[in-house]
């Protein structure tokens, strides 16, 4: 496979990546947040990449590219707000990850 990861060189910025794992003790959930910093290209998501029937126009949608693994249900913190990864692109075999993240409010 062609390695296209160097296409991101010079375009990335450090962003905070959050993984939330939930464990239960006697069925009472406890969330553990693991925070790391990854280099990623962050830009507004294209409308064509979104599921038009599920878009919430009051929220911001981001398109994220990174050589670090991106996982659905993890979070990207950008400009002070958390964005939940809701969609992954099929580019893992080409050296990078693509994801769509939705602005998340607790």
């Amino acid at each position, binding site marked *: 496979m062609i390695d296209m990861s160097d296409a991101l060189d010079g375009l990335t910025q450090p962003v905070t990546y959050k993984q939330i794992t939930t464990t*239960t*003790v*006697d*069925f*009472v959930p406890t969330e553990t947040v693991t925070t790391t910093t990854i280099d990623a290209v962050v830009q507004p998501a294209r409308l064509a990449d979104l599921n038009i029937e599920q878009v919430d126009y009051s929220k911001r949608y981001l398109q994220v590219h990174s050589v670090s693994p991106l996982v659905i249900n993890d979070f990207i913190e950008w400009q002070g707000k958390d964005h939940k990864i809701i969609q992954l692109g099929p580019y893992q075999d080409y050296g990078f990850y693509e994801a769509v993240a939705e602005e998340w409010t607790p």
Partner: protein
Amino acid sequence: MDPVIQLAKYTRDLLSLPEAQIKLGRDNFDNTDFNETLIVVDTLVTVPQYNSFSYDGNNEIMSYIVNMLGDFTLNFYGLDAEANAQRWIALNTSEAARQLQKALEIQIYNGTSFNNLRWLPGSEYRNRIEVSVKMRYNIVETNDVGRIDEVQLDQFLIDC
């Protein structure tokens, strides 16, 4: 007390299963493997049966108790769905079950139905057995109520 959590604890301890294999209903859980054992505990409707009171004179606390009776469902998934469902129903009458119910302050009656939901209209699912059961539990709320230590009586005599 959350009755669904109490029933989930009861199921976990009765069948000696890991807690991760028992989920609370409508908890937004993604099941990625229908071969693994999974039990989903949920409730349909609960109805108040009767009220009672209990007073702790030493601490001056009044307890208000409502006895609830409800319908609960357990959905068994995985390759061992039917075996686990049958084990649950059979062990429900054991001494261990009685002790667990006493510790969790619940009372579980024998299962009211045992449905094989594998074939749903228009689609095919892997193993899914639904057991319906009635369970009784109490809701308790407490209030500070002063204790009467000394009663003072005033008597009035009317001379007619």
